[in-house]
């Protein structure tokens, strides 16, 4: 076991745990944001640099600080390590830089993007980004393409987290026909030549996508996510690798969308098969268990009934602040 302190919070975690997972074991504001790391996908992480943290003490044995900020998702803790996340101005500055880099070529088409409301990039931008861009140049654009008959790829929105390629390698039977082509800022997710991704588990690429680059064609433009009700549901799926445990997103009685069940860090508990995801859209297909707890602070939770009370309090607090500012002026 290793004792580690993150933003002043002490915790004890098994040796070999990453800083990010140590923080997640406690939760709250000390958890660095992660756009490319996905605990269930081997090899993921280290790329987006949003989870950079400062290690101000390496360990009890070697208390020297680490010379550079480190990706918390790929750096393992040492006994006595002291980490600064949101308590370090240096980290916040670097993170702001990363958000800006991720956004300079992003189309910012949230008003028409299906991911809006449950988008990691949107959340990250709100929390760590700047209000305006300094980027004056033309943004990179790509054609929207179908990869398979159920999945749409909007490459413009992609942040190259590589997660979908890991899903193809590790979840969808290793039958990968899409990947990263070209290099540098021309790099893109592609099948190179037009090819349909054909695997029973390919739909999980949509769930792991942190942005709206991969969307479910059976649900596209169906509804803003905050107008739908997420309900835990299950069915007796005959695919032996699929648990049939999902979230169905309902509007009235209609099921608009089916996804995996995601935790507080937007990771699915279990990957689900394409039949459950794309083909079971009737309420009668499912045993509805009850409302899904959406316990992260994204736009979706803002409109979710469970949180209405919190939101109301937040709004009232804000109104009081504004009122007092006006009075002062």
């Amino acid at each position, binding site marked *: 076991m290793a004792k580690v302190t993150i933003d002043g919070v002490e915790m004890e975690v098994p040796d070999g745990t990453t800083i990010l997972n140590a923080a997640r074991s406690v939760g709250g504001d000390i958890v660095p944001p992660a756009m490319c790391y996905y605990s269930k996908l081997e090899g993921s*992480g*280290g*790329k*987006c*640099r*949003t989870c*950079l943290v400062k290690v101000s003490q390496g360990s009890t044995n070697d208390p020297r600080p680490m010379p*550079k*900020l480190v*990706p918390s998702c*790929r750096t393992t803790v040492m006994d006595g390590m002291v980490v600064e996340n949101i308590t370090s101005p240096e980290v916040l*500055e*670097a993170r702001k*830089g*990363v958000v*800006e*880099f*991720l956004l*300079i*070529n992003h189309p910012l088409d949230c008003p028409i993007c299906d991911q809006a409301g449950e988008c990691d990039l949107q959340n990250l931008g709100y929390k760590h980004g700047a209000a305006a861009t*300094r*980027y004056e*140049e033309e943004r990179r654009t790509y054609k929207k393409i179908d990869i398979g008959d159920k999945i749409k790829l909007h490459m413009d929105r992609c*942040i*190259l987290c590589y997660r979908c390629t890991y899903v193809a390698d590790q979840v969808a039977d290793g039958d990968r026909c899409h990947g*990263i082509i*070209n*290099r*540098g*800022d*021309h*790099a893109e997710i592609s099948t190179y030549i037009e090819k349909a991704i054909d695997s029973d588990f390919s739909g999980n690429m949509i769930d792991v996508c942190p942005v709206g680059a991969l969307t479910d064609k059976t649900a596209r433009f169906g509804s803003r996510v905050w107008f739908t009700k997420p309900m835990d549901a299950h069915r007796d799926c005959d695919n032996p690798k699929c648990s049939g445990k999902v979230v169905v997103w309902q509007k009235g009685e209609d099921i608009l969308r089916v996804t995996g069940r995601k935790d507080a860090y937007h990771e699915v508990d279990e990957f689900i098969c394409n039949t459950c995801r794309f083909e079971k859209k009737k309420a009668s297909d499912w045993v509805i268990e009850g409302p899904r707890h959406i316990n992260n602070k994204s736009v979706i939770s803002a409109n979710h009934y469970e949180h209405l009370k919190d939101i109301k309090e937040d709004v009232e607090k804000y109104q009081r602040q504004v009122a007092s500012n006006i009075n002062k002026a």
Partner: protein
Amino acid sequence: MGRKLLLEHINVPGIETLEVYRKMGGYSAAEKAIKTMQPDDITEEVKKSGLRGRGGAGFPAGMKWSFIDKKSEKPRYLVCNADESEPGTFKDRYLMEKIPHSLIEGMLVSSFALGAKTSYIYIRGEYFYVLRILEKAIEEAYAAGLLGKNIFGTDYSLDVHVQIGAGAYICGEETALLESLEGKRGNPRMKPPFPAISGLYASPTVVNNVETIAAVPHIINITGDEYAKIGVGRSTGTKLISASGHINKPGTYEIELGLTVEEFIYSDEYCGGIKGGRKIKAMIAGGSSVPILPAHLITKTANGEDRLMTYESLSDGGFVSGTMLGSGGFVIMDETACIVRHTWTLARFYHHESCGQCSPCREGTGWMEKVLHRIEHGHGSMKDIDLLVDIAKKIEGNTICPLGDASAWPIASAIRHFREEFEYHILHPEKVKDPKHFAHEPFVSSKLENV
């Protein structure tokens, strides 16, 4: 004349052949090492020599060797980094082309020291003709029993192969190189684990630059202690310097570390002074990635001491008034050069060469190139200069591999030392329309007028 080791026999006719190379004493170090020394003794000699990695980072070679995981059951590999791509650097090409056996002998001694049975030389794709020269030399070595089974009648056997790259600067980064050698995209790996623990095929691996490996037989010949006597302080031995730009005698030179920069630039033995007798304006000492220095900081440090060709003296003053020895890519610019244009070409280079794996480098390098393009072509605005400084700052230190830093330093240092020239481009767009705008009427910074 400084002492020559690597290039001592460079002018001997036929030195590229095994026959002449052996006549000049070639492979005697290998024979001595394999027949009379223990592998760890060789590592010890290299440690004593103080030899530092000649590819750019300057990490002590002997120490790097000693990190190799000896407990691992997996085979160990030596991989030679011949992916020389740093702008301003062409010394490895010269060495491999002219004396290929010096690298092969170095591979043999180093592989034996590390316990490697198979070693690879990864050479950049553009050097295809050098690949052919190396392959020929390797063939000769096999035919003479210097590679293959039971070398020098001992039970040591070694295979050496040359792997060709295909156009990617990033593969000079050792883990990107290993990825490429495994037939993948040249995306640098996350570290740790370092190659010494998990490198090629997840086996313990040492990656060394061509010049580093080629220096090893010389260390064996003259002993580590003797080698360490050459040079100054922690900058021991001789170093190959690729000299280019506005000088009378561009080319590859072997210097004893500790030579003054002044002598290197102005003596006839080396660069032979500035072309056309013009005034010097700027210098890049160690390849395009290192900070650029303005005229008044080239031959003297900020403290007024003579600047020496050593790791320490060149970096004297840190990034405020110093630079780095890096790969020894020495580029001189005279007063006709436009720093903005030059900086833009480097920004374009790093943009082109970014692998795209991590976001600060992928997005930042392209952004910096675009802003610099704007300024150089007379469309910039004053806020662009600080924007560049800020982008560079946000890339530096925040990327997976050093390419991010390498893209940021030249830009940050050019603005630090030549800010007025950037401002001039913004204030006088009509004067920078002609791409050769300073060729006839050099720009003189008010700060540098008296130098």
